[in-house]
């Protein structure tokens, strides 16, 4: 039994080394991030969290009516929207409201047609230069994976959208820039775009700035990690399976080693 304990101590020690290595890695990302981001307690946080479909659909509405004027999401197709609980008819109708360029046709000419499920989200600008020209030199970033591309992504997006406050005394905001409490450096080219009742939610939810920010953050989190629900569900099953298998494996090992003094 003592040897058993020692064996486990070794195993635990080895794992602790690994855990320490993992722990050491975090400061690398934390470097330079001094602004504390409030936790919005999103439905999709944690081991079992799932995307709140209502919130994601409202977020889509905010993206469509507000953000998409400047921000592309070129990695998404309209068909992906089926995953947040919209019916096929709804998505087809939504896609058809956009016009995309297709072709060339048999005459070698490009033509325009309504978007289909298989089309990528329409981009607001044909290229980066056009986007910059229309936005005072600033480039509205693509939002496809934005919550993966920022530390604590969804919370950051929500904080940023609600972070347009009066600058502190003495803080000089450059011309064409806006003060934001959560943006690194606090000067952001994007103005405060969300105002109360900016959109009219079909489900009657009150469109406060915080509500819209939460909803669009949920939508963007889904857009960045559409696999997250399947991933976590699979992970729970696999880890439960491994724990059972580990127990059995350990029992087998004990039995095999039973006749060995060690």
């Amino acid at each position, binding site marked *: 039994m*003592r040897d058993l304990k*020692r*064996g*486990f101590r*070794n*195993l635990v*020690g*080895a*794992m602790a*080394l*690994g855990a*320490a*290595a*993992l722990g*050491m*890695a*975090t*400061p*690398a*990302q934390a*470097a*330079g991030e001094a602004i504390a981001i409030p936790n919005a307690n999103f439905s999709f946080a944690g*081991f079992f969290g799932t995307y709140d479909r209502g919130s994601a659909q409202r977020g889509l509405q905010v993206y469509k009516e507000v953000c998409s004027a400047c921000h592309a999401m*070129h*990695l998404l197709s309209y068909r*992906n929207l089926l995953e947040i609980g919209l019916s096929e008819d709804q998505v087809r109708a939504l896609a058809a409201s956009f016009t995309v360029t297709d072709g060339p046709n048999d005459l070698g000419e490009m033509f325009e047609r309504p978007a289909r499920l298989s089309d990528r989200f329409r981009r607001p600008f044909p290229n980066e230069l056009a986007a910059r020209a229309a936005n005072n030199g600033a480039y509205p*970033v693509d939002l*496809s*994976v934005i919550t*993966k*591309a*920022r*530390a604590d*992504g969804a919370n950051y997006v929500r904080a940023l959208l609600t972070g347009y406050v009066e600058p502190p005394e003495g803080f000089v905001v450059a011309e064409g820039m806006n003060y934001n409490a959560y943006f*690194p450096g606090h000067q952001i080219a994007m103005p405060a775009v969300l105002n109360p009742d900016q959109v009219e939610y079909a489900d009657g939810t009150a469109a406060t700035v915080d509500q819209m920010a939460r909803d669009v953050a949920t939508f963007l989190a889904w857009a*960045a990690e*559409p*696999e997250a629900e399947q*991933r*976590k569900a*699979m*992970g*729970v099953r*696999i*880890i439960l399976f*491994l*724990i059972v*298998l*580990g127990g059995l*494996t*350990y029992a*087998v*090992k004990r039995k*095999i*080693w039973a*006749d*060995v*003094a*060690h």
Partner: protein
Amino acid sequence: MAIGLHDSSIKNPVIRWVDQRLPVFTMMQKEYGTFPTPRNFNYFWNFGALAMVTLMIMIATGIFLAMNYTPHTTYAFDSVERIMRDVNYGWLIRYVHMNGASMFFIVVYIHIWRGLYYGSYKAPRELLWILGVVIFLLMMATAFMGYVLPWGQMSFWGATVITNLFSAFPIVGEHIVTWLWGGFSVDNPTLNRFFSLHYLLPFVIAGVVFLHVAALHITGSNNPLGIDPKGPQDTLPFHPYYTAKDSVGLIVYFIVFASLVFFAPNYLGHPDNYIPANPLVTPAHIVPEWYFLPFYAILRAVPDKLGGVLLMFGSIAVLFILPWLDTSPVRSMRFRPIAKWTLFLWLIAFFVLMWAGGKPAEEPYVTISRIATAYYFAYFLVILPLLGRLERPLSLPESIALPVLRGGGPMPAGAVAKPMEKA
């Protein structure tokens, strides 16, 4: 060796027919079945097998990723996201591969540290150790090039910083960098060759792993006591004893691995790598992957660029000559009361370097890095050579099986292992 059919002991006529002509089954039976293995391994001896399994996982997932990846600066980033979204279970394959790199380094770092603690690098296992260091170097090169492939901001800027290190060499430096890049900056030719090499090197690693294992099977394994087995009473057949024990470690390892893949797949990555590479925008802090941070800290600890580069390479190179730097004939640190603590201190220095490597290059991190770097080298170049002469080791047990651990716990004697009857 006599010419003619191999004298096979295998009963099954079909397998026997093959084995007489190509005795791979006899070989497997000898090397992984009856192979005499010290009976006193602890769970640290799992990590060689874990590394082997991880290499296979990396190659398997990597092959499927390569089927769907496009090595072109315009398409690379999007093709990786396409794998995540539109390839069946592509997210799983990619997250396993991405986190598998981290798990590989965790496993190999523990494996190396096991070797340092139990003196596995000492005679007669010097070449075995050197082959291990070669594998480690190849792993670093492979991981570095793999990190470039998604073509995110850290991919691009990490590649720029690391390849630029070679410019520190006088006269030829700039030419080497241009040659590595295939141009005058990190660009499409760089991405293409890195992809090619990233696919090639794992198979080179597999080849060196074969040599590593072959060398291991000549000298036999070291063990926690660091003394040689004196006879059959000190060893057990590898199967079923260590196949069973390795399996336990493997499942525990898979649980850790799965926790990372399924619940925190991007925890060890940098968010900036989900921003497409942009040569015109430099990230605020360019940091390498976590497993390179100790060496990155050593690099930055030196005010001179060339000096830093040499010291960084030196931190690995010193491992090659370690078998001759440690002058103590005693392998296991269990019997080296002073050396044991100097090694624990070295481990702390390693973690301190890992922490400092992720911080900006400013005070107090630079001074801390310097102290840790100094100790990292002093351990190998000063402490080990001197301690071998100055330290008085504890008396070694007579054999692995005999309960002579003075001051240690009693070990039940007798009970010679008998191989399990296979059902």
